[in-house]
């Protein structure tokens, strides 16, 4: 598979089937919602849902917007392998929240395209009390980026 194709998948350049009609070439808006440790949120998730989402002081259902200032890119590792990758360009922060019920996952989803799911990331179970919850992104590289499409 051509590595450039993988990064072009991330920018909706190719369409093998029925897809939303895009009125603009601008990047979509992505959001990050937090989910309770008791919630079922995993690779089978297809879209954002408020079921199992955290609730609490200063937390808005649907979560917060993800900063997306860096377009997807791709790098060839060899003639047969490569990686396309993307990472939010800033940390995701929930400020001055109280989230009393334990949560352990964040769903990244596309709020422009019917809230369709992108990825789920889990971490140790947490609660927040009148404080901040910050998710810092890994480095945006072929081996550590938050989202990677790879041929091996």
């Amino acid at each position, binding site marked *: 598979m051509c590595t450039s194709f993988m990064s072009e998948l991330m920018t909706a350049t190719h369409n093998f089937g029925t897809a939303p009609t895009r009125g603009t070439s601008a990047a979509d808006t992505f959001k990050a919602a937090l989910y309770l440790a008791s919630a079922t949120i995993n690779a089978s998730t297809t879209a954002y849902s408020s079921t199992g989402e955290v609730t609490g002081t200063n937390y808005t259902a649907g979560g917060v917007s993800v900063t997306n200032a860096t377009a997807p890119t791709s790098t060839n590792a060899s003639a047969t392998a490569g990686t396309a990758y993307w990472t939010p360009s800033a940390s995701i922060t929930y400020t001055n929240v109280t989230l009393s019920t334990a949560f352990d996952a964040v769903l990244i989803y596309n709020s422009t395209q019917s809230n369709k799911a992108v990825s789920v990331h889990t971490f140790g179970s947490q609660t927040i009390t*009148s404080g901040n919850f910050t998710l810092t992104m890994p480095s945006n590289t072929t081996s550590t980026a938050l989202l990677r499409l*790879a041929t091996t």
Partner: protein
Amino acid sequence: MINTTKGEMDESLLEKREGVVDNDHEYTTWVEYWHEGELVHRSVHVTLKQAAVFSVPELATFG
């Protein structure tokens, strides 16, 4: 000043507790402030390590 469940409080009035979790998935730090045995502030900073990887087989070949 620390934002707490009782409003902003001087840090000197609070007991501070901190912790770290470091594993393959995350590097997490947390800080708690306690006042007279009550948790009044807890913040957490998670640095994600584990990326979502979608791998596909190597370049297709014809036999």
